[in-house]
């Protein structure tokens, strides 16, 4: 039987996951999907410095499609083979500051987390959290649940609106 704190944590996790799914899949408009992604990271996870990338069809680079609190021009395009952050995203393995990652030492700028977006076994994009809100000391279980959800569902939501971009 679950204890009171466990039930409370489950409730919070379910609310977060429901909200994220609802917002990501509630529209077929690309700008609204990106806005929802930004709001999820800012409002539910607690980062006000973030970037959302989409991988080019040939896989060579990650192009910035949304950001908050950063110099967007600086991150407008990351090479998937030469840029440390691009290589990290291309690896398909989630990075969280303080946790082991094969490419962690290559990062030139400290970041809080990098979430590769995956669809059908391919990395199709990524979300980078450069820092957390000052009062947030780290990620908790609910955040990791959201990371897992975003990995797949952000990729799906972006794919579903990919045609809109080129239309």
């Amino acid at each position, binding site marked *: 039987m679950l204890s009171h704190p466990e*039930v409370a944590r489950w409730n919070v996790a379910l*609310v977060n996951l429901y*909200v994220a799914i609802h917002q990501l899949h509630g529209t077929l408009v690309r700008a609204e999907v990106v806005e929802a992604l930004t709001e999820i990271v*800012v409002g*539910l996870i*607690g980062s006000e410095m973030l970037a959302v990338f989409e991988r080019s069809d040939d896989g060579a680079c990650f192009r910035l499609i949304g950001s908050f609190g950063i110099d967007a021009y600086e991150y407008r395009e990351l090479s998937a083979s030469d840029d440390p952050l691009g290589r990290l995203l291309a690896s398909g393995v989630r990075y969280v500051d303080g946790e082991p990652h094969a490419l962690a030492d290559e990062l030139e700028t400290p970041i809080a987390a990098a979430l590769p977006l995956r669809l059908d076994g391919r990395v199709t994009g990524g979300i980078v959290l450069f820092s957390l*809100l*000052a009062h947030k000391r780290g990620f908790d279980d609910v955040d990791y649940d959201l990371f897992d959800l975003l990995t797949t569902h952000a990729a799906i939501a972006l794919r579903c609106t990919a045609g809109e971009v080129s239309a």
Partner: protein
Amino acid sequence: MSLPRKKLLLLVDDSKTILLMERMILGGGAYELITALDGEEAVEKARAELPDLILMDVVMPRMNGFEACRRIRSGAATSNIPVIMVTTRGELESVEAGYESGCADYVIKPIDAQELLAKVQSCLGETLDGGGDALPS
């Protein structure tokens, strides 16, 4: 015997994601919920609907949460409506420096569901966990 009127809460935020989050936490039958997407709309709805409590974001287009709070608190009909500010820690410094805007309490983002429920119930004068079945714990 008539049922007691549900308390009316006005949720104010320019983020539809946060509004949905707040609706999920505070919904479920305990309260009647209405929303506004910026401070100006919040002032209008506060005057028209006279909610029992307002949950107010700080940074919003057209009119920020502080200004909206001041206007609501300065209106004769709305001066007693408690306002809970929803803020990041950075904005909180402004909240603490400008408590004269009249907010009754604040909640820090990312929103903690249990904390939000407790503060709403406290501001409404409800006993904790006795005010409704919004988010079972």
